[in-house]
């Protein structure tokens, strides 16, 4: 079999990526907008295209628990969820990462209620930032498929042993159809080494999992931190190997787009990156030197690279689909902390796309205009702007 091109939704691309890896156990509970992904997986299994065991569970909490059980006996596991379902998993997310079980989970990003909504923003996964999982934010259905394959190799690396979330924007990616290249299954299998964990439950050599001799909690946390730090280098290596073998290069944790040394730079993540690319092309064609930085991972956080990329630019904006109430967008805080000590570049947070609000090219052009003004004056035009705020009472800028 060779690679082939198909025209599919993001959810089908995710399911296809999983079918190429063929984990031992899938345990998932349906939730909009993830449902078609897990329906497709169960279809693949029913049709004999995938030999995984599909465990039907009664909640997302159980889905994650079943994945933990599966990995605890040495099987590869996969699950997928969204929004409220991810929130329900919260407790078990810590069990997965703390026990160092390299589960891979796809999350179709969806807003958290209330106000009730099924459309996209990234508040659901950003709220799980501190659960000890690695987090990728992808830009397309193709990247979702490819990142799932990469995630297994990354998570299972012996000196990493950390679960990974592959976050793909609900509807914008999950339900939109794209041309997707499906790599050859044997080639994917050769890209991911055999999974042979040794600290697993085994009747021949009974073990207690989840337990550490008391007094060594800190030391196990140090191991966890070292594992996630190791992931930084590994992501670079794995994306490079993937590019060599499959021809698609996702660069690593961050990707720069646009001219070298742009006058102003916008940092963003997820599907909106595609729209920003078009704006960057348009403005650069008009002779305006604007740059884009795509943040592909939020954990591990590539602060060294960001500091290096952003230190020479005139103003930095961070466009994100979340907010940490009482402060600012979580990604903005992190980007600013990465900039600490490099220079005094003015920066501003642009909160956009909440609850599925469209982010138009015009919105992004306005963001770049603001960054140009900031670069000229050396001062921010406010700290946080809610992009597309509908009222004219001036409260959309804080």
């Amino acid at each position, binding site marked *: 079999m060779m690679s082939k091109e198909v025209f599919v939704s993001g959810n089908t691309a995710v399911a296809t990526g999983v079918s190429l890896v063929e984990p031992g156990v899938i345990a998932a509970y349906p939730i909009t907008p993830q449902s078609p992904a897990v329906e497709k997986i169960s279809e693949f299994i029913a049709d004999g295209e995938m030999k995984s065991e599909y465990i039907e569970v009664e909640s997302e909490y159980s889905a994650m628990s079943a994945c933990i059980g599966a990995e605890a006996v040495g099987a590869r596991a996969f699950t997928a969820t969204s929004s409220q379902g991810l929130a329900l998993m919260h407790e078990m997310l810590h069990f997965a990462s703390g026990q160092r079980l390299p589960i891979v989970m796809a999350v179709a990003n969806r807003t958290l209620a209330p106000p009730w909504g099924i459309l996209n923003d990234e508040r659901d996964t950003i709220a799980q930032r501190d659960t000890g999982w690695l987090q990728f934010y992808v830009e397309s259905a193709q990247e979702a498929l490819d990142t799932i394959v990469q995630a297994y190799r990354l998570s299972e690396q012996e000196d990493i042993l950390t679960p990974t979330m592959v976050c793909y924007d609900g509807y914008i990616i999950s339900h939109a159809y794209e041309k997707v290249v499906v790599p050859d299954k044997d080639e994917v299998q050769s890209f991911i080494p055999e999974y042979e964990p040794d600290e697993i439950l085994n009747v021949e050599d009974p073990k*207690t*999992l989840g337990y550490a001799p008391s007094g060594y909690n800190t030391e196990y946390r140090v*191991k966890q931190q070292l594992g996630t730090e190791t992931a930084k280098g590994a992501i670079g290596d794995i994306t490079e190997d993937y590019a060599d073998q499959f021809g698609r290069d996702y660069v690593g944790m961050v990707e720069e787009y646009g001219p070298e040394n742009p006058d102003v730079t916008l940092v963003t993540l997820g599907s909106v990156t595609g729209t920003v690319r078009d704006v960057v092309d348009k403005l650069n064609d008009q002779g305006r030197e604007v740059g884009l930085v795509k943040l592909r991972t939020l954990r591990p956080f590539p602060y060294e690279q960001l500091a290096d990329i952003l230190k020479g630019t005139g103003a930095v904006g961070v466009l994100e689909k979340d907010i940490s109430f009482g402060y600012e967008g979580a990604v903005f805080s992190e980007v600013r902390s990465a900039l600490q000590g490099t220079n005094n570049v003015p920066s501003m947070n642009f909160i956009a796309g909440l609850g599925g609000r469209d982010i138009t090219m015009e919105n992004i052009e306005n963001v770049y205009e603001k960054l140009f003004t900031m670069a000229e004056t050396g001062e921010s035009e406010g700290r946080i702007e809610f992009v597309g705020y509908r009222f004219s009472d001036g409260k959309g800028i804080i």
Partner: protein
Amino acid sequence: MKTKEKPEKLSDLTKTPSGKAGSFKLTDVSGWKTFKPVLDEDKCINCLQCWVYCPHGVIERTSDDQAISIDLQECKGCGICADVCPTDAIEMNKIRGVDDE
């Protein structure tokens, strides 16, 4: 809390927080209880209710003449055994000091 193993560097620890089955026993928990069960063998009718109900499985069946013995090292002092005993053969006594465990 005492542990019986003494790792000295990160690589001495297991890769993941795990240990041999029964590794909870490595931690000395005998000091966790405020009350300890005291068995009056004369009152005991060997019905094994306490053995069934003890949530920590620390009541052991012994011989036919004397059905049970309690492992005070692992007992958490919850008092369930005393509560379920039909003949009040188990009394919960307050522990007065470290030596009284």
